[in-house]
């Protein structure tokens, strides 16, 4: 008589580099395709979409009204200033627009992509000179500051341009995420792969959208980012955003501290690994994600389905912020997955060996970076 050993439930293991490449090249999602992941990702992206809508409106408003404003203390009141709104703002009963500014600063600081290259071009210097001249007519403080520190005002214009561009980027992403939730509710999105495809298609559709910035200064209209600069949505804003916020990040956010003098921080900015995909969501917001802000905003807009799911996981509502952070990181892997798929050099089903080799090299390069991320989130 023989006995058959009962199959042992095996612990899921972290995907290695080969597995990551395989998934990228075989149109398999990086995130394990499970019903729980689908529920978390879609719902957390819906809440994120609602938050991004508010962030986007505010950033666009700032771009339109706050350029070279030396004291932009009311920049978060894009819906108008009232004592009630001020009270809500002071009491924290509001969207935390500061998080949007953190992301903008990361993007601005790392400065990758075509927009950053344009900032260093002569046409942009001309635009800056014109904006400063127009504004200085009615602003003696700016005139003085610009005389003393000629680099100050152009830098402020660059920063505000990034704010505006991020607002435009998030407008698109917000719509993609809200639409994703709509399609999920009517059954058109039924697995994690569908989520990745939805985001990829949204990014590709918007890929060529021009990124322009026109603003009224001193009664005149000025194109800070003119159409002829040729900046587009995917390459010049979306990819730099992913690079800055998802991967590189900044080592000075969250509760994990780094000692630069002890060489804990790479001297080369391109080697930074403090972005959302590297963040440890557990110890009250590690590097890269300050969930006290972003997670609070999402918590206020959490869909009922996800809220109920959290009730039965972790410590239920009492650690909902951590659970949101964990779900959010999973969803950011999906967005990264979609961005990689959307920028793949050749179609995945290409038969030409050269095209296949190019795709492999592209996937390999991404897998190198993904290896250092929180791959545990993919399980």
């Amino acid at each position, binding site marked *: 008589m023989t006995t058959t050993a009962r199959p042992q439930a095996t612990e899921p293991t972290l995907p290695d580099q080969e597995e990551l490449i395989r998934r990228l090249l075989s149109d398999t999602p990086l995130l394990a395709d499970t019903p729980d992941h689908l529920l978390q990702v879609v719902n957390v992206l819906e809440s994120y979409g609602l938050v991004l809508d508010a962030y986007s409106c505010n950033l666009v408003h700032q771009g339109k009204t706050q350029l070279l404003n030396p004291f932009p203390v009311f920049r978060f009141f894009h819906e108008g200033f009232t004592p009630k709104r001020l009270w809500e703002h002071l009491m924290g009963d509001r969207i935390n627009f500061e998080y949007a500014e953190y992301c903008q600063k990361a993007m601005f600081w790392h400065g990758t992509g075509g927009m950053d290259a344009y900032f260093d071009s002569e046409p942009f210097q001309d635009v800056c000179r014109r904006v400063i001249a127009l504004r200085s007519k009615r602003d003696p403080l700016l005139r003085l500051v610009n005389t003393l520190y000629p680099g100050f005002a152009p830098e402020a214009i660059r920063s505000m341009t990034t704010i505006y561009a991020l607002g435009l980027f998030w407008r698109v992403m917000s719509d993609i995420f809200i639409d994703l939730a709509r399609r999920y509710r009517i059954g058109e999105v039924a697995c994690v792969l569908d989520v990745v495809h939805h985001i990829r298609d949204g990014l590709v559709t918007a890929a060529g959208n021009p990124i322009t910035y026109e603003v009224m200064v001193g009664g005149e209209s000025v194109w800070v980012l003119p159409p002829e600069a040729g900046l587009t949505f995917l390459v010049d804003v979306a990819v730099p955003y992913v690079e800055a916020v998802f991967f590189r990040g900044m080592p000075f956010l969250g509760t994990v501290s780094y000692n630069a003098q002890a060489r804990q921080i790479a001297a080369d900015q391109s080697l930074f690994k403090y972005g959302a995909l590297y963040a440890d969501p*557990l*110890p*009250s917001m590690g590097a890269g994600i300050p969930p006290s802000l972003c997670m609070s905003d999402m918590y206020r807009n959490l869909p009922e389905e996800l809220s109920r799911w959290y009730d039965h996981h972790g*410590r239920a509502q009492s650690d909902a*912020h951590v659970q949101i952070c*964990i779900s959010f990181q999973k969803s950011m892997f999906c967005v990264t997955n979609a961005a990689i798929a959307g920028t793949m050099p050749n179609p995945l089903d290409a038969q030409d060996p050269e095209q296949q080799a190019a795709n492999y090299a592209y996937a390999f390069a991404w897998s190198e970076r993904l290896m250092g991320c929180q791959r545990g989130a993919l399980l």
Partner: protein
Amino acid sequence: MLTILLLIPFLGALLICVLPGVDSSDNSASVGRSRTFTLVTLAVQCLLSFGLLIPFSAVEPGQQLVEILPWLPQMGLEFSLGVDGLSLPLVLMNGVLCLVAAAASRSVENRPRVYFALLLVISGAVNGAFLAQNLLLFFLFYELELIPLWLLIAIWGGANRAYASTKFLIVTAVSGVLILAAFLGIALVTGSVDFGIRPILTTQMGLTSQLVLMTCLLIGFGIKIPLFPFHTWLPDAHTEASTPVSVLLAGVLLKLGTYGLLRFCLGLFPEAWSVAAPWLAGWAAVSVLYGSLAAIAQTDMKRMVAYSSVGHMGYVLLAAAAATPLALIGALFQMVSHGLISAVLFLAVGVVYERTGTRDLNVLRGLLNPQRGLPLTGTLMIIGVMASAGIPGMAGFISEFLVFKGSFEMFPVATLLSMVGSGLTAVYFLLLVNRAFFGRLAVAPGANQNPKILNQVPFAQQIPALSMSLLILLLGVVPNLLVGLSQPATAQLSELATLVQPGGL
């Protein structure tokens, strides 16, 4: 009134065993009823203890509210109770900590009625020992608390409870034998069967006899306190005892030793005490340093706290050796503050062990995590650690300051060495806090994945430690609450020891 203080817990213990209403076929209901009954009994006892403050005169140094009932006059045994500024704070602390221990006894699955009855017996016996005005009566109560404590460790203790409880019983029984021998020796040498606590009796003895008898008492109480090298039973007992028993053990039962040191060694043999004082100061310094260094080497949170007791009880011996009025006030303050602080520390360690299943400092990390860790427990632990390290504004600072200030003029070297021990307290407790509570939350070394979800601790479960923390802060800010109560008594005790000369250690 003092007799009632003893009757309440003893009657409570009897009732909890015999009353049918307390028992139940449903174990959890039985635990709940027994616990509630015990809590009510101990709350009444605690209230009555604080009620003593009304008739008690804080300016009177001698025994007050004395109650005498002849028992066995042929043997010199009489039921004689009294309270003074030395015993009253300890009676109050016994009332509070027994209540805390009962409140912390939430998960007694095995024979809950016996468990709670034993708690009540301990409470009554300790009160009896503190209030006894007869040497034999003190000895009876001193021995009476051993049996329930032994049972509490042997039945409700950890995996190695048989070893720890047996060691505890044997070693502390030796302590009892030595104390009884010393008491009987007094009768033998003086030829009197008057076992009242009267220093005048011992003045009739020669110095050698005094020294021999006092040494017996010193070793007996040194085991109980415990002082190096008689401390070996304590870490084992603490490690295997449940949290409430550890609270009682550190908070109340060790104080029987230090109380005995002041009341009987210093109080009965002032002349011999003055001769031995420099050696005792040296012994105190060694005990302080040994306890502190041993604590640094521990990786079990509970053993670390246990060894800290060895060190911190050394301060009491140092102050007693110096026997200045300030030092003796410091000794009493140290007894009370150590009782409260160790209660907080053991309660916090108990919660950590209950939630994580380990006390290993090589395993625990990041428990202060606000959302998935044990933040309130961590906060209470840090408060306890700060108080134990003598941070100003807390009871530990007042007691250590009084001890060091009061002892320095008599034994500067021993005092300085003890101050080093105080610094070492910060070292080992910071190691504890840093390892277990800071960093990334984990309950396994090098854990990379999210750890198992630690269940939240209900706020009600934290109330005992929270209350003790508030008391620590209160005594740290308003030390006169205690000092004013005890100053006349400790001053009188100090007058007995005027023969102690500065010098030596």
